[in-house]
């Protein structure tokens, strides 16, 4: 087709003419604020994430007790009281304090793991989409193979082999999530590389690396950010599962998954010891999902 669409429905035309909305001129902070006020669901998500971030950062000041302080005297009545708002666990440790300190673990390990996956996946996706041919075939087939494995078994094999440590968790989550991110970036790259502005960049002799990083990558920003928040939620679950299976971060440091694992035997005796950390994990996952949904909605509306 040599002729592009010339006429657009009046509603669309109106949006185009009215493009000079004030928010364009605002700074990054104001833009975030604009998004949040625009999308209630994103606001809720961001509020939950922010709550846990504040807990994590100010843990020494916010937490009412040291997280590993054992007091078996409290086991007489371990339920929530005015001293221990969320009760104590089977060793008499304050649950609220352990959740607050545990947020540190999750909120450090999960983002680093996701960013590792993003870096690896973006690089492979760009290469795969831009180069095409054999490079594309090899990268995508290896990725497919990796995705075909049940993830949890991969985690277990690698951590059983190399030992449980924060570094190994980051590495294994990074590697297993990279193929999904690579696919997203590859899809955008395949679309964008045939746009005229890429042709213009080639005509002035830009290197493939410049074209990939400066011309193509910024256009993947939208879908990538949405997906990263989703991955952050999944990674929170994964870290919880690893903790539950006993291959998470080594004790006695508080870890939400570990807290569930240590107490689930007493689920019918003292249910709050298991349920409260479960709610903590769920809330963070839901927060990430909400924010991702809100971001996607706002990027669709433009």
């Amino acid at each position: 087709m040599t002729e592009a669409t010339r006429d657009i429905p009046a509603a669309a035309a109106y949006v185009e003419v009215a493009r000079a909305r004030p928010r364009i001129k605002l700074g990054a902070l104001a833009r975030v604020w604009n998004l949040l006020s625009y999308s209630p669901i994103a606001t809720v998500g961001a509020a939950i994430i922010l709550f846990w971030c504040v807990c994590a950062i100010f843990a020494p000041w916010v937490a009412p007790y040291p997280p590993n302080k054992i007091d078996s005297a409290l086991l007489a009545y371990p339920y929530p009281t005015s001293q221990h708002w969320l009760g104590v666990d089977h060793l008499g440790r304050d649950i609220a304090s352990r959740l607050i300190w545990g947020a540190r673990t999750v909120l450090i390990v999960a983002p680093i793991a996701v960013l590792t996956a993003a870096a690896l996946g973006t690089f492979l996706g760009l290469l795969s989409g831009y180069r095409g041919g054999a490079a594309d075939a090899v990268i995508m087939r290896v990725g497919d193979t990796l995705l075909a494995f049940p993830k949890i078994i991969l985690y277990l094999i690698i951590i059983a082999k190399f030992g449980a440590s924060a570094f190994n968790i980051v590495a294994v989550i990074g590697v297993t999530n990279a193929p999904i991110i690579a696919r997203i970036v590859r899809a955008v790259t395949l679309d964008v590389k045939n746009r005229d502005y890429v042709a213009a960049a080639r005509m002035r002799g830009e290197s493939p690396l410049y074209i990939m990083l400066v011309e193509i990558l910024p256009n993947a920003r939208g879908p990538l950010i949405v997906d990263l928040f989703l991955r952050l939620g999944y990674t929170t679950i994964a870290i919880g599962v690893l903790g539950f299976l006993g291959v998470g971060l080594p004790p006695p440091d508080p870890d939400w998954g570990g807290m569930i694992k240590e107490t689930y035997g007493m689920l019918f005796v003292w249910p709050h010891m298991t349920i409260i950390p479960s709610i903590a994990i769920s809330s963070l996952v839901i927060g990430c999902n909400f924010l991702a949904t809100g971001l996607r909605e706002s990027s669709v509306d433009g």
Partner: protein
Amino acid sequence: MADVLVFDKVSIDYRGKAGVQRILNDVSFSIPAGGSMGLVGESGCGKSTVALAAMRYLPRGMTVAEGRISVEGRDTAGLSDAELRRVRGNRVAMIYQDPMSSLNPVMTVGEQLMEVPLLHGVTDRAVAFQRAVAMLGEVRLPDAEAMMARYPHQLSGGQQQRVVIAMALMAEPALLIMDEPTTGLDVTIEAAILELVRELRSKFGAAILFISHNLGTVARICDRIGVLYAGRLVETGDIRSVFHRPAHPYTHGLLSALPRIDARGKGARLHPIEGTLAAADRARPGCAFSPRCPHMAPAECVERSVPMVPASPAADHLARCARLEAVRKASQAAWRARPPAEAEVDAPILLDVRHLTKNYELGGRFGGRAKRVVRALSDANFQARAGQTLAIVGESGCGKSTLAKTISGLIPASAGEARLGDADLAQLPVDKRPRDLRRRIQMVFQNPDSTLNPSHSVEFALARPLKVLRGMGSGEAKREVARLMEQVQLPPDLLRRMPHQLSGGQRQRVAIARALAGEPDLVVADEPVSALDVSVQAAILNLLSDLLERSHVGLIVISHDLALVRHMADWVAVMYLGRIVEYGPADAVFRPPYHPYTEALLAAAPKPDPDAGAPTVVLGGAMPSSTQAIVGCPFASRCPRKIGAICDTETPPVRRFGVHSIACHIDLPPPAAGIRSQADAAAPPP
């Protein structure tokens, strides 16, 4: 006769996030049975809303705020949903721009056509089948019975649109609404479809509401016209009175911004309409066009509302203008033609293309299917000259974009050479070209939506080529960027904007500035204005020709629009199926002797003149697939002047008339000296 469709002072509001917006404002017109009304205007003027409103099919958030819309005397506001459905199904039919959106891809053409009578009370499938076959014959589709068994994707775009028209007519509607029905089609196909519509109109007697941005197509089939601007009807009347004596300054502007195929040659300047349509114009109490109008007087135009007033002695010719007298006087003085510039045949040759060929190979590796070769470009020969414009014309699929990409090095050539100075561009894909060679040849692309990177500001887009191609530092580049912006007549405060904050015309100006940043010797422009509105188009064309004239840059412009080419080109190459069938100076190509294909293209080009009459040549059929090996003349299968078997068996000889060459078997007479061309004989535009 009763009016089939009546709009009586209709206003339509759109309630959105940004508040209430008036999309249509006080629109009144009516179409009698058998009549045809054309609605024209730039994108965003509300013409599609009129179509939707006529069907009472407004998108969510839009409501009829004032006025009355009636179909066959019945007010559509009072109809229940069931009645409305009956009106839409039986009395009104709509044809959209993209035929594929109206056809179901998983049903055969026959099933879809038979559905119509079966839904309207015919119970016998054999009867429905017969009616469908008969209707396919009416829309001039060959071999109607075989066509019934095909799926939509097996048809060409022109054939699909014919099927849609057949489907619309099956219900015997009283009103046919056509929203840009030929916009995506090639000129020769468009001409054939328009002829069909004209024929069927007299036969079936349906009233037609024809919506288009193209004044030429409206002139060909409508007997009344309405001009919309910012949701208001600014002029309406009999098509001849409006075209010959336009009253509203906006109509004037549209007509004089339009490139004309009967222009006297290169240099006949277009008159763009200054400014752009702004959102605020819809809400203006006075005349919506006043900010762009050269005749604006605050007291009459801005402060009070402007009613429709009689614009000429002709009945029903109305215009929404407070200063008709002033406009009339000014327009008589304004018309002055520039003398046509003589093409300098002996300007230095910049790019010498010989036997350039590009074949794509499809399949054959893992697919298991036999390898096929697409001959996108075969044996092209031409020269581009410094300071001159070479136009490459042809329909979609003729290989003109392949030619542009081969020269610019984005795809490698299969054979032949393209010499720019000492370098052979055909052998040098763009990443193997030395920096200086890359600088010397740059491109302007077609689509304003994808020509600029949405993630980069205008300043970044312009500074980068300066740094890469001319080795400038940041400070120096910044100064040069300011100069470039001035050259393409953009205000410097646009520098920090992102592409989505610019209009299509502004983006295309930035793209031109980017192409000129490296101070190239040759610019290749692939359909630089085909996606823009007429008034913007004229401004961009003027800008391009001014810039090139001043700087002695050679320009290769790829286009399907012969009228535009007439205004710009010094040289023209006409392409068909990957071959150049006619090549020569523009003045020679636009006058006989023609290649039969050139003749058909010239006849098919829409002319903004209601008296132009039916085109003398209408091409049937479609371009053959370029995967078949061509024996004989590529145009033989569609040629109206085919002389016999020789056309199918032997490659046509190239006949030369000086620098003008035509590849055809017909023994064409040389151009007679002293005979004026058709173009010169035509009456000057109003």
